[in-house]
């Protein structure tokens, strides 16, 4: 099996040069102007938080909420790591956008045949053995690409070698883990990172219990309703039979008198 790939983003090392943004936009032939937030023409942006720069990008979750939510299975997790969107299946319901805990997917609101847009971790390039355009462009080693377990080890090395780092890698366990990892020298909550809504549990567990109950509910409900129907029918039959009996008795009585 292919080794799971990942991207490590080091907030301490990021100099905010926007090379990653530009490289991404060049690759996708978007207009090169920097945008303030993710959009259908900006799959990664560098946001300023105080004197720090924080990249926003699809986290490529290990067990993605968007993929579990998509009614037609247009989103899937690939073996290499990227969470990929299949535009041919999409019906444009935008449930993925509601489901994503990081609010990453964007929509082409202006188009007549709109699709969902988000980072695909340069899936084609990494399949060919390369790396994403953004990590390739990073001059500061702030965004690096590699095997996921090796990157986690590398992140721990960086944390151990420099005591200014927060001893936590965001993305290893959050919401079941992701293929984009962050290390930082400023506490994550101060940089706008929200704790994952499910803690370390994958997001799809939120719906799994409701969906898992449905076969039980259907079987139980079906049985109870059938039983009630049987009782109703039986009572009707009994009432009918009793009425007939009464009528017969009355007739006999009348005949005798």
């Amino acid at each position: 099996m292919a080794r799971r790939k990942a991207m490590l983003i080091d907030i301490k090392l990021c100099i905010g040069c926007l090379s990653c943004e530009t490289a991404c936009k060049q690759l996708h032939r978007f207009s090169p102007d920097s945008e303030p937030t993710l959009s259908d023409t900006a799959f990664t942006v560098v946001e300023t938080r105080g004197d720090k720069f924080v990249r926003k990008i699809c986290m490529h979750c290990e067990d993605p909420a968007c993929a579990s939510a998509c009614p037609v299975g247009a989103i899937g997790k690939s073996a290499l790591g990227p969470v990929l969107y299949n535009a041919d299946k999409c019906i444009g319901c935008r449930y993925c956008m509601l489901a994503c805990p990081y609010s990453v997917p964007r929509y082409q609101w202006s188009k007549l045949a709109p699709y969902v847009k988000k980072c695909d971790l340069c899936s084609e390039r990494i399949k060919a053995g390369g790396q994403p355009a953004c990590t390739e462009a990073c001059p500061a080693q702030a965004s690096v690409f590699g095997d996921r377990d090796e990157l986690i080890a590398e992140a721990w090395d960086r944390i151990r070698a420099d005591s200014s780092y927060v001893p936590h890698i965001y993305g290893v366990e959050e919401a079941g883990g992701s293929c984009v990892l962050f290390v930082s020298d400023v506490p994550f909550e101060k940089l706008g990172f929200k704790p994952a809504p499910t803690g370390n549990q994958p997001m799809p567990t939120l719906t799994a219990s409701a969906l898992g109950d449905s076969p039980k509910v259907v079987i139980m409900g079906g049985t109870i309703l059938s039983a009630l129907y049987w009782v109703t029918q039986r009572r009707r039959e009994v009432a009918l039979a009793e009425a007939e009996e009464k009528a017969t008795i009355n007739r006999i009585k009348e005949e005798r008198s």
Partner: protein
Amino acid sequence: MLTRIKSEITLWRVIVAIIFVTGMYATFLRFFEGFRASTNLSDQMPWGLWVGLGTLCGIGLSAAGFGISAAVYLLGMERYRPILRASILISFLGYMTVCVGYLYEIGLPWRFWHPIVMWNHTSVLFDVCVCIMTYTAVLTFEFAPAVIEKLPWRQFRETVLQYHHKILIGVVLAGVLLSSMHQSYLGGLYLIARGKVHPLWYSQYMHAMFYLSAIPAGLALTVMAIYLSMRSLNVRVDFGILSGGGRMIQLLLIVYAFFRVLDLAANQAWGYAFQRTSEAGYFWLEMLLFLAIPIFLLSYEHVRSNPERLYWACAVVVAGFMANRLNVSINALQTAMGAHYVPKWTELASSVMVIAAGVMAFRYAVIYLDILPKATSQPRSRWISNGGLPAQA
């Protein structure tokens, strides 16, 4: 000639004309100009009024069909048979409006059939799609006799209705289960949006809350529709049935209120209700309209036994239900999503047009088909009970 035309122009006809003209223009904008021109939806607010009003309210308010058909067919509550067809018709038309609305909502409407062949069993929305499609077929089946019996071919009519009768109970049973599933799954849609839905509405039992709240709201809409039919369409229903319906609505609302209060306590969300936020305001509005006022009103005999008062009490229930669904789908999300969403007029106009089409279809069905018992005597006697006998529907 001119005076004849003039007399044809009534206030309601003018309103209907305005609804359809604006609705058609909004529809044109939606399909030929796109979302940007026809909605205020954004990346922060991907679902808006079409989902909140069109789908969540549309399906929820159509819940009476399965409730009444379960009561009559499965539980033998023959008392409600006179309003059975009306409630099935309301559900059927409600689901039709949702199916049409679905084409507005999805970005690529020509792919509406994808969920039928592309399955994703972990998706609540997939289950909702499949359940709604199947249940719309069930409703079509349940309603079909009203149309078939009007067909001129006797032989055909009898054969079809005979087979129809044979499988009816099975279909009704399947319909009840399907309804129960997707009524709750509509709430289940928001389970995955934990952290986005405000704590006053988010709960791990959201799906159960949706289920419990839909049935009284659906009944209330049915009572309203039957009241209006009796007032204007020369039909007659034993008012005792509607009065009993009022009591049933109250009972169901109390059950829902009990679980809602308990659920809020279990999630330790009551604190949010007393903060000075717009969410708390919307929450109390919903609580007043959907629970406090109707439960209070319907506990009075002279509200339940007076057609007009019962109608207005039911109207409050429906308004409160809509407040709940719009709160969940729009107001509960805005803060966490960092969005400020006010629907564009086109969103409202197209939704209202689709609903108006449903209302008009209901009207003509009641006039031309045997939906509700027709009044044979003078219209004045329309409230008089016919002795509680099951009228021929």
